[in-house]
């Protein structure tokens, strides 16, 4: 069975989707679509895709795809997704799924009603280091989660950030939570999985730290700290546009062990109690840490040799699981409940950021 795939939205994230789909034996990209025909044409030309459209409804009617990837700016996600579901398509939607959790819930409910599968492009949800952490938790190596620290560094002058700075009408400026809304899925979806409280206490602090942003004459907070307090667990999330080097990590503090997941370098290391007593234990500990890094480096070399060391390896895994689920009618890889809990947290944070912005004038 070959699954016919179409993509709508030929902007910055389209290449990641196309590359991911092309790795799947069961899928074939039949068409791409963008409101700007030139964007659709160039993507089709670069990847040798036969058809391109500027009208999404026309694409649905002519190509009749089985799966649609939606990589457009967030304000258009829900309407495009609803149309695709009505046309009988399964969906991969870029994050954020919708502009708020109510819209997200409506979209998911619609997909369930029509028995279509939907997933969200959580790039890091299935990153190899997260999959390893899940295994350690499952095997009870970590114990129970006590606290989580999620850090997501961002470069506003990088390939994703600079278009936002160079255009004051960029769609990111118009999101309810602005820059944060476009990023927070990455920061929070690593927390919610291990912090099961339905209504944790959430407190967000934000500010604008970039000097060059003042040239833009617009309000774009770019530093965020979030504290999430549950009944038995807590979490701290930090989004930073100014700390260097740009880092991306998660620290899982468990009742038995603490794990540090470095997404930039794709390593997971454990901070364990030393088996040696007193000063000997302290002397030995850095060597034990060093050995873990050597082991992780070696593992990455092996993964590279097996062609499993792509930058978006977690996204590739997500797609392979999602498409496998379509072929064999399996549950979706990211539970809808998780997607909605993240969306609710984003709503709360965006609301607090707006209030703080209004207070500061």
């Amino acid at each position, binding site marked *: 069975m070959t699954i016919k795939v179409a993509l709508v939205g030929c902007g*910055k994230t389209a*290449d990641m989707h196309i590359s991911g789909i092309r790795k799947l034996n069961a899928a074939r990209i039949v068409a791409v679509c963008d409101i700007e025909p030139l*964007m659709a044409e*160039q993507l089709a030309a670069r990847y040798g895709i036969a058809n391109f459209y500027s009208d999404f409804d026309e694409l649905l009617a002519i190509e009749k795809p089985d799966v649609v990837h939606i990589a457009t700016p967030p304000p258009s996600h829900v309407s495009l997704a609803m149309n695709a579901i009505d046309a009988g398509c399964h969906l991969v939607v870029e994050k954020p799924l919708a502009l708020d959790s109510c819209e997200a819930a409506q979209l998911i409910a619609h997909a369930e009603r029509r028995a279509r599968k939907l997933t969200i492009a959580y790039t890091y949800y299935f990153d190899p280091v997260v999959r390893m952490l899940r295994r350690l938790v499952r095997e009870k190596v970590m114990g129970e989660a006590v606290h989580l620290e999620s850090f997501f560094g961002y470069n506003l002058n990088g390939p994703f950030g600079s278009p936002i700075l160079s*255009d004051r009408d960029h769609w990111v400026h118009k999101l309810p939570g602005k820059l944060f809304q476009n990023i927070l899925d990455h920061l929070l979806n690593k927390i919610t999985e291990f912090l099961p409280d339905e209504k944790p206490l959430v407190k967000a602090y934000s500010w604008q730290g970039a000097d060059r942003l003042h040239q833009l004459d617009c309000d774009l907070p770019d530093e965020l700290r979030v504290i999430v307090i549950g009944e038995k667990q807590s979490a701290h999330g930090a989004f930073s546009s100014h700390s260097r080097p740009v880092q991306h990590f998660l620290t899982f503090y468990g009742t038995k062990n603490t794990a540090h997941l470095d997404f930039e370098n794709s390593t997971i290391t454990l901070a364990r109690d030393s088996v040696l007593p007193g000063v000997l234990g302290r002397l030995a500990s850095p060597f034990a840490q060093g050995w873990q890094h050597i082991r992780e480096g070696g593992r990455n070399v092996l993964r590279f040799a097996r062609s499993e060391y792509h930058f978006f390896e977690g996204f590739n895994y997500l797609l392979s699981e999602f498409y496998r689920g379509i072929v064999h009618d399996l549950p979706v890889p990211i539970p809808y409940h998780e997607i909605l809990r993240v969306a609710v947290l984003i709503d709360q944070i965006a609301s607090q950021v707006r209030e703080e912005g209004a207070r500061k004038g």
Partner: protein
Amino acid sequence: MKILITGASGFLGRAVVERLFAHGNLDLTCFVRANSDVSVLDKIRNRYPHARLDYLVGDLASPDDARRAVEGVETIYHLAAGMRGLPATIFVNTVVASKCLLDAIQDKKRRVVLISSLGVYGTSFLETGRVIGEGTELDPHPEKRNVYFHAKIWQERLFRAQAEKGRVDLVVLRPGILYGNANPNCGFPSRIGILVGSVLLVFGGGNPLPLSHVVNCAEAVVLAGQNAEASGQSYNVLDDNVPSAIKYLRSYKHQVKNITTIRFPFFATMLLSQVVEKYHVKTHGQIPAVLTPYESSAMWKGHQFDNQNIKKLGWKQIMPTEEAMRDTFVYLRGLNGHTQ
């Protein structure tokens, strides 16, 4: 006569503004982005007390901003292009922006001076040593080129299509490697090779480097914009007496800093390109296709570029090549922390 310069805050844009003032064009509008640094443009204006320099801030890929930009303008110097970033960003800033500009000027025919690139020619198919003049065909397979040239070829096609319909009085300039004393990125142009960490892989060998000092190039741009004979013409823009890649590197090492280089003859470059491309395909892009036989052949096969046409417009090199290289290297040496 009101003149618009897109991409005015860039390396070439600033030099074009200076040359336009120097040629007596004292009413300029610069289209810049919200985060563009215009301090250098301000300094240039201060040197011409009678000149008027307005800024229009916006995004040329927005039809509204493009319409606003061309209001009351007679001549457009279109320099804006996406130089770096993701493929989609480069394409939007080069091609979609050009489309919006063309749509905005449909009501009235105006002169547009388009800054294209020597890289748009279909040189991959041409034999070694071939002299590339303006009559050479554009690359028929832009999708096989790197994303920058891909976009530049597409951009030129768009403008040519409109010019053929008589909607634009088009002049195309195709500069070579722009260099000079205000561009920190001009040390190792891609026609020399690729910098991997601190090692430079040299693929350009003995090929002549089509260097164009930014002041010389800006002079050519302004001359072409002002000359009625230039209508409908294309011009290669490169300096005379340009050095080979190896000679340039030797001077760089002597005058700026030493650097480890590994030189690849052309057959080895092609072999390496085939390996990289095959590995890229086999591993589904685990490493990017930074080298492909098609691109390598276009870039490093050993073609020469002809600059006779621009001289017919009266263009003369303001800064001789030897002085231009010295000027650039002194600047780069300063960036590397050496005192003069």
